[in-house]
């Protein structure tokens, strides 16, 4: 379906970041009455996507779906169990920390918690110029000027250079985190829930900043969030994750107007819209139960137990992510009901 006349999928040679069949499994020991028995948490279980230059790829999903682990594995902060990560024609997933270092100039990360991700004992100036020290960028004297330029770029007063993180609010700290990521002039930034800890009005400021910077600097983003509206807003293409797998991947407009996977549709219908008139007319696709534990192996589709349209076949065989422009991993892809995005 939907794979009709679209041009060839961008090959990894053209895309900036290419993730192929990534798996991250954590061996753990069980508690409770099975105490001690070993089992495997399949946090990420076969994830593939490409990110082109200047593009934003969004990853959405609920807690435990593996989106953050995917981010960390791309940066080699968690070792991938299997699969490949290619950055600009170099394979980076199996590199040692020292071999990985030069690649970190191209790929940076912004974290969720602006309070935990900045060293409280370093001044803002040092936080922002430390990456330049590591990569020996600019002359020592110019680093301070560069740090001031970066602060200005992210909308902070350059005179704040000698202040400490605690003197800033959450939104301002997140701007400092962005400035630090930009210090090495990366090509791509992995953003793990960068705005979810911020207040609504501040969240909009940071989203706008990130979109401005992307235009100015030609950055690519992998933007991970649980807020569907935020992701729709910022991402060009969006992947929906469930239990360690991408279950649907398409352009943002396509995915929100014409979602095909029942899980994505349930997610969309559960997310409230700030409009009482719309809200009172909406019918939700109610999911029963909760996300099952990722230590079980399913013969069939991992969503089958909660799926409103699953049948016996879905419990026997596992569907694969298929389709080019709009990829879905479901045997019965269909639009169950119109989504709110169709009102626009």
């Amino acid at each position: 379906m939907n794979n009709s006349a679209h041009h060839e999928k961008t090959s990894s040679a053209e895309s900036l970041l290419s993730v192929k069949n990534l798996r991250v499994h954590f061996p753990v020991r069980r508690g409770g009455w099975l105490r001690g028995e070993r089992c495997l948490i399949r946090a990420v279980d076969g994830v593939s996507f490409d990110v082109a230059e200047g593009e934003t790829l969004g990853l959405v999903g609920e807690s435990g779906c593996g989106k953050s682990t995917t981010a960390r594995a791309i940066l080699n902060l968690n070792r991938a169990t299997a699969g490949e990560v290619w950055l600009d024609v170099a394979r980076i997933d199996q590199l040692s920390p020292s071999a990985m270092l030069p690649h970190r100039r191209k790929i940076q990360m912004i974290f969720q918690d602006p309070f935990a991700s900045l060293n409280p004992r370093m001044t803002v100036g040092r936080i922002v110029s430390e990456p330049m020290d590591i990569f020996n960028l600019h002359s020592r004297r110019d680093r301070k000027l560069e740090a001031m330029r970066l602060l200005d770029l992210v909308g902070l007063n350059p005179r704040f250079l000698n202040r400490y993180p605690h003197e800033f609010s959450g939104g301002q700290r997140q701007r400092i985190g962005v400035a630090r990521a930009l210090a090495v002039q990366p090509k791509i930034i992995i953003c793990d829930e960068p705005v979810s800890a911020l207040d609504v009005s501040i969240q909009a400021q940071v989203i706008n900043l990130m979109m401005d910077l992307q235009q100015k600097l030609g950055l690519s983003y992998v933007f991970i969030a649980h807020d569907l509206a935020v992701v729709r807003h910022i991402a060009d293409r969006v992947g929906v994750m469930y239990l360690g797998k991408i279950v649907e991947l398409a352009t943002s407009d396509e995915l929100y107007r014409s979602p095909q996977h029942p899980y994505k549709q349930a997610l969309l219908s559960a997310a409230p819209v700030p409009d009482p008139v719309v809200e009172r007319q909406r019918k939700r696709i109610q999911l029963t139960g909760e996300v099952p534990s990722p230590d079980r192996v399913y013969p069939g589709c991992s969503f089958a137990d909660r799926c409103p349209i699953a049948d016996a076949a879905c419990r026997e065989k596992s569907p694969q992510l298929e389709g080019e422009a709009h990829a879905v991993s479901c045997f019965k892809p269909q639009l169950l009901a119109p989504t709110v995005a169709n009102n626009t």
Partner: protein
Amino acid sequence: MMNSPEQHLSPKQHLLEVDGLQVDFKTDDGLVQAVRGVSFYLDRGETLGIVGESGSGKSVTNLALMGLVPRPPGIVKSGRALLDGQDLLQMSDNALTAVRGAKIAMIFQDPMTALNPFLTVEEQLTEMTILHLNHTPAEARDHAVSMLEQVGIPGAARRMRDYPHHFSGGMRQRVMIAMALSCEPDVLIADEPTTALDVTIQAQILDLMAELQSEHQTAIILITHDLGVVASVCDRVMVMYAGKIVEEADAPSLFANPRHPYTMGLLESVPRLDRPHGVSLSAIEGQPPDLAHLPPGCSFAPRCPYALEKCTVEAPPLTDRIDQGRFACFVNVDDSEPKPFAAKRT
């Protein structure tokens, strides 16, 4: 959920009436005025949403109602909060203990920290009804099991002996709701009850709260920063900024016709599922004010594109909207040119 238009006109007593509530905190930075004269009412069976950002005073207002403002550093400086004619703010600790849980109960954002990790769910659930309803342990146990069944916990009887950490986030929140509702309180205060939960679980919990509300005619105060949640469950909405109510109206009017620039800004700054991708959000520039050093005049004025000179000197009083609501702003936003919350540099 009910919504009676004559509420404002009739002299009938409201279930809860809060009048001129002020709460201060003494800090190293000076006196922080967390709540600065808040008045509102609540009727049986309705859901009142309180919206605001961190530091707007929405949580402290409700902690004051529950007698839970930490003293020191906090102090409830003035005000009344009449629940069925009794002033919650003047009660002795013993009198409060009799009311809390029985007539007014609270659900917190993080069920893991609100439940006692050392006690089984059974011990925590039965404690309430033994205290307030004089249940015998056996009655209390039966009641607790039926509450857990009502909130949709599978195998309720079996799970009574489990500890909070045995439950998932959504299930823990259900346990909290079961606990809060086990004495059928008149008022339920829910402080960000679904913020820590995933959307599909959030939808389940909100539905559950609405269901239990219509069964028991509970009045709910829902504190949240999520305008989507407000739109989907609240009858009336109060918007707070820097310790004050800046606007209040029934939900459809507030969303369709916001009168305070802050409310307008909030509504404009959320990305929406029903809006196309890529349009720039109109963010409210600047930061919320420091509550220890509040500007004179309207505390939103420094961030407000509509602000007049008068706004920086004098604080606007709460005046009535044409419909039932109130708002605190000198500017008539309908008569003036729409102004963008422009991208000013901070």
